[in-house]
């Protein structure tokens, strides 16, 4: 028994089956990420003053990753076009490029961006102790200027004992009154050598930049994690289509392979599109 229209199109709908399937799947994916993004909006609107951090992510690295993903969306189209023109070698190279782009993206995310966060430290100061740390927070000036208050001191955790934390400060906390620190920087500034001592008594909560740190990092890790899983899934599918098994399919029925690449390419564009939303929401805004 044969299922009709797996490869050829059905005349009255003009579609083959997997194409309908993938669009429906993408519709469900839109709703999945839609749910997560609406959670982001909800949490951000609800956040208490000073509770939604800015400028903690590495914008140049994020920009580079964005470019890599966009590039891979181009190469996957070229791969598909090569198949349509029955140029298997070109297809093979374009597919390899797509796979590499995906791998680079994931590597940057998992081996660089995430671990960097895990090593960064932040301590939320209790409301009643904020005055004591004014020299790191600069809230007097901020209130005057109508800016959100700072309630967290961040940097690298040098050492700690039962009573206090020693933190090598981030530039924001090292020179809190410097107007240049009012906006996040494009190129992240390295940690300064200025050390602050924070008494544990004055600290409401102190953690590394983990999902537990704040609603911001909770959504950052959840959304980029889920997105990363999609990238990984796409890469695995592409590897399968690039391996010799798929060459055999190509020799039997090139159109079948082209259809498969088209469908997974659509998925890949979607993954790319999601990133286009993730990037500004977390890195820029």
């Amino acid at each position: 028994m044969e299922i009709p229209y797996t490869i050829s199109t059905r005349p009255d709908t003009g579609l083959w089956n997997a194409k309908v399937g993938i669009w429906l799947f993408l519709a469900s994916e839109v709703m999945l990420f839609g749910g997560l993004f609406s959670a982001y909006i909800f949490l951000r609107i609800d956040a208490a003053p000073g509770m939604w951090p800015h400028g903690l992510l590495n914008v140049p690295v994020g920009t580079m990753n964005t470019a890599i993903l966009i590039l891979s969306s181009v190469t996957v189209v070229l791969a598909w076009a090569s198949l349509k023109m029955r140029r298997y070698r070109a297809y093979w190279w374009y597919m390899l490029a797509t796979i590499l782009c995906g791998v680079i993206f994931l590597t940057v995310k998992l081996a660089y961006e995430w671990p960097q966060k895990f090593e960064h430290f932040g301590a939320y100061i209790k409301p009643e102790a904020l005055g004591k740390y004014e020299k790191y927070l600069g809230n007097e000036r901020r209130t005057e200027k109508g800016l959100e208050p700072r309630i967290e001191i961040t940097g690298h955790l040098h050492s700690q004992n039962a009573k206090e934390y020693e933190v090598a400060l981030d530039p924001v906390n090292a020179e809190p009154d410097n107007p240049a620190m009012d906006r996040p920087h494009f190129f992240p500034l390295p940690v300064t050598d200025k050390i602050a001592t924070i008494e544990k008594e004055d600290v409401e909560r102190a953690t590394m930049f983990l999902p537990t740190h704040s609603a911001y990092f909770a959504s950052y890790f959840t959304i980029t994690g889920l997105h990363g899983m999609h990238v990984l899934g796409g890469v695995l599918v592409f590897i399968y289509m690039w391996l010799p098994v798929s060459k055999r399919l190509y020799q039997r029925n090139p159109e079948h392979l082209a259809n498969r690449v088209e469908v997974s390419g659509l998925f890949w564009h979607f993954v790319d599109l999601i990133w286009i939303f993730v990037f500004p929401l977390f890195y820029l805004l």
Partner: protein
Amino acid sequence: MDASTSVETHHEPHEHDAAHEHHELGWWRKYIFSTDHKVIGIQYGITGLLFLLIGFSLMMLMRWQLAYPGQALPVIGKWLPHIFGPGSMPDGKMTPDFYNSLGAMHGTIMIFLGVVPLAFAAFGNFVVPLQIGAPDMTFPKVNMASYWALFVGASIMVTSFFVPGGAAKSGWTSYVPLAAISDTGQGYNPIFNGQTLWLIGFIFLITSSLLGAINFITTIIQLRAKGLTWMRLPFFVWSQFVTAFLLVLAFPPLEAAIIMQLMDRVAHTSFFMPSGLIVNGTPLSISGGGSPLLWQHLFWFLGHPEVYVLILPAFGIVAEILANNSRKPLWGYKSLVFSVLVIGFLSFIVWAHHMWMTGMGSAVSAFFQTTTLLISIPSVIILSAFFISLWGGSIRFNVPMLFTIAFLPMFGIGGLTGIPLAFNSADLYLHDTYYIIAHFHYIVAPGTIFGLFAGIYYWFPKATGRKMNDFWGKVHFWPTLICMNVIFLPMFLQGMVGMHRRWYDGGQGWNVANEHTIWGLTGFQWNHPISWAAWIMGLAQIPFIINFFWSIKHGEKVNDNPWEATTLEWTAPSPPPHGNFLTPPVAYRGPYEYSLPGRERDYTMQNEPVEPAERSRRKPAAEPVLVSH
């Protein structure tokens, strides 16, 4: 080895490979890991029925506690602790935690493991490809994956009863922050605890539904038989089509919410945890800043479409059986189709009517009150069309038809009692009382479940070539109908005196449940007849179970079209072979051509060509023909 021989023997490419591969399917591939939509449909069906029974049994236990709070359950009470652990029913007396587990899991199991697998997946899988004249689903392997995802999810849900602390306890809605902090701390495993397993199991159930729904929609779009245009589709196909869209679009936001609750529980994030939360007198050391309301929005964004997932397949089944047994075309086919499409659309913008108590502003609540009232219009159209379809029919009262006819007023009661809930002023009083329980159970129990029974009796001959026994069918029907009403009608009254739906003691310790009498009994006392009716209804299912299994082997043998129906599934052999039809069917006419004038038989099947004489009779010229001869 197989591949090499096939390359040698077949010179024309591969098209034939597939056809040759499954000559010799082993037993496992044929009955367990099958890709045949009919086998998968039956797998779904058995699974769904099994879980309906399990979910019903949980509820029968709860009914003991509600009618006889704090008393030891006779006979089985002694051995239940051996199954569910010592914390469940020490000395046969139910603990509050166990009661809560039963409640939460009753809802979850009935909806997501009972009705959805049976109404959507089983009937959809078995019937839809046959009705549209397709050889199978578009993606048979995905179809199989969908069933096994359900299987894994269901196994996780069942397992959760047996971990330390027992199954989830926060209601089928798993409202946060209660759900996020329950089953944590001492005595609970960080992963293998009720609530966390509930979440993980759910991810599999959602995956299963998504795979299934995508498959259904693609199949209906792509594999309709030649000549089977959209307006010639049986109404059942339409209802499954809309249902599948609801699942595709509404389930993922819940999946997002479930991922977030899982993060809250496992990674200790605060998506749903407000700042300053204090549990048992100690402030939680979490970041806070989350929003409990967010969960409710995401949950009901699924939750409301989900209730239509529960009812639309039943509409479809009822429509088929109604036309078949009144021997006349379904009244208002087009309005039915448009109504079901409108329901599908509107069901995405009414969700906040479950949240009146959260105190949304008047503008927002005006919006949701309006949309909620709007959505009752197409529901009323559908129900009215069904009633009118009966008018002037020559009705056959066989078992499927009995269940179908009973469905109509039962659904009517459920739907009409929803109208007061659409107004937030009335709902503030009725919210979370037994009135709500009665409202939606009238729709899903004597409503949907009756539709499902009707469908089982109706399509059983197609699946097995045999009919279920009529007499025992009636023995099943009448007590079930009576018990349903004894169970749910008094709940409206209990709700109106103010009895809360989650009370553990059945209202024994609450004034409102004991002060007034309604028809001679207090709210609390009404629990007795309700519980007894529930247990008797349990007994009334025994004839069904026996009839079902007995008839597979010993039922009366019937031909391919025992009900003298018109739609394409009845042109296939019973049971249909792999690939379904001996020759690909062609449809020449609409789905309900009963009692066509000038015909010998009172039914004309969709694959019977239109005769020239008929054509002139059916299509009178729109304007008088003035041409002279």
